[in-house]
């Protein structure tokens, strides 16, 4: 059986370390992961008229992030599927609906790593902690500055 899990990301390569840790510790289990980027919907009517999650994701996806995903996919054959989704509501109901709609079974959060906060983003980690599903916090040591977190080298991490 494939297990559906959820991991919040900020489109920095460093945030994929959570996924790497999960895959490393569940080598027998097939996993399908939904990477969630949390941000409020735009207030602008124009933006809402032409709202397209694909465009928003595409705009944020960096080459290095894509490469990192490919590396993980090539490394772990247990990784069945990777989906990137946007998460727009900072409230419990929205979260519960989102989780049940995507048939999420487990949530994995970074423990010490702080997701990068951009213009309209909000801290989804605290919200996901309140969910009724099993929540696991993954910890890794990393002392990188902000630009380094976006580089591919953030994935090459000794302490894992």
């Amino acid at each position: 059986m494939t297990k559906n899990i959820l991991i919040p990301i900020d489109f920095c390569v460093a945030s994929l370390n959570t996924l790497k840790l999960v895959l490393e510790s569940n080598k027998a289990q097939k996993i399908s992961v939904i990477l969630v980027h949390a941000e409020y919907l735009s207030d602008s009517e124009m933006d809402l008229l032409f709202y397209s999650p694909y465009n928003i994701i595409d705009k944020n996806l960096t080459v290095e992030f894509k490469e990192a995903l490919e590396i993980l996919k090539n490394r772990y054959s247990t990784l069945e599927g990777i989906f990137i989704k946007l998460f727009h509501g900072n409230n419990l109901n929205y979260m519960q609906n989102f989780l049940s709609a995507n048939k999420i079974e487990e949530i994995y959060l970074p423990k010490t790593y702080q997701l990068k906060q951009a213009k309209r983003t909000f801290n989804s980690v605290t919200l996901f902690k309140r969910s009724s599903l099993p929540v696991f916090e993954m910890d890794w040591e990393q002392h990188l500055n902000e630009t380094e977190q976006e580089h591919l080298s953030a994935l090459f991490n000794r302490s894992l």
Partner: protein
Amino acid sequence: MKTQTKAAILIGLFCITIVVLFGFAIYFFLNKYSFGDFYKRLETRLSIAEKFYLERDSLNTEKVRQLFDQHLEKLDKEQEYVIELKSGVSIQGVSNTHDFPKLFLETLMQTGKGQARKGNTFYAGLSENIKGKRYLIVVSAENYYASHHLIFLRNIILISVLLVILIVLFFSFYFSRQIFFPLSRIMDKVKQISTESINLRLDENNRSVEIRKLVKTFNELLSRIETSFETQNNFISNASHELRTPLTAIIGEADVALLKQRSHEEYQKSLQNILTQAERLDEITNSLFFLAQTGYKGKSILFERVRTDEVIFEAKALIDRINPRNKISIDLSLIPDEPSKLKIKANKQLLHIAFCNLLGNACKYSNNNLVTVYVASTDNQVIISIKDQGIGIPEPEISYLLDPFFRASNANLFEGYGIGLPLTKNIINLHNGQIIVKSQLNKGTSVQIKLPLYLD
């Protein structure tokens, strides 16, 4: 053809086509309308003539004639014909005597009605049988409007089209020159730039955004060329300096040894010194030779299918032999499951040299501290990352790192000639790969190499 003329001709042709089409359409439709209108007028006269001649008995002909003459405008050269067709007369005969078009008469006989035009004269007619006799009634007139007004209109249109063509041609050439003027100015300026005046730059203050971008790109290109020029110049001075140092040492040593009679041990010692320097010289020339060889786009270099991780392990084995105290650890936590995702098209010897250089550097500049090598692969390339915890490279010097004989300002304590990294870069370039160096002073350096996968 010059783009300028091309653009001008395109714009000109486009405008001219529109104007010509417009003029032609006006003339054509007005002409058609005037013909239709004129036939209607002829037909009115025809029906009056029919009534007048064929029902002459029952009408007060004088009165009717007067009435019509008063109220109907007389057309230019208006003429009415009433022809009784006698059995002996052929159509040809009628056509000849009255100068009617023959086709007109034929349709008249067949359908009983007809219209025709001969030059500027218009005909309308009908044929009727009355009391056993066959009559042809024809009204003809000249179309004054068509002959005068339309010709006048045609002339106006022709002249104005010609004028418009002239104006359009003038303006399209003028504007295209105006548009391309900055380009020709740039060209003039670029022509002034030669090897001696490579520090000249183009003026970036142009109103047009595209031109500004072009100028900027040009300037960036010039900057790059200038840097590589400097590197070339530096290369020669550096190379001669590097070669001269051991030579001077050899000459000096030999000179001193030959000054006076020396003991056996002293000769041995100085010969030993000369040998060391000569070996160093040999090493430098060898690596220079390699650098030159890899610098040319490989003609005789053989490429085969190579497993990247194998090459790295071999390189590590070699470093282990040269420098047993090294701490190189190869991290395979991200290595792909499929071995095919590690295979690249490469020359094994060259790649071996490149990795040995990188690993050797990493150990050397970190005083045998921990060096970690990561191997991973995306869907189309293998990524190798070599991280050390060494002295790092000062930020402004990173861009010169891959130039021959360049040595970072903080590398003086370590032995080296500054040939290893340029050689590595050449090798990676030969394999269509990328090399990215990132570094933090006193914290460490990370070199990332991306090589394209061998895809079947």
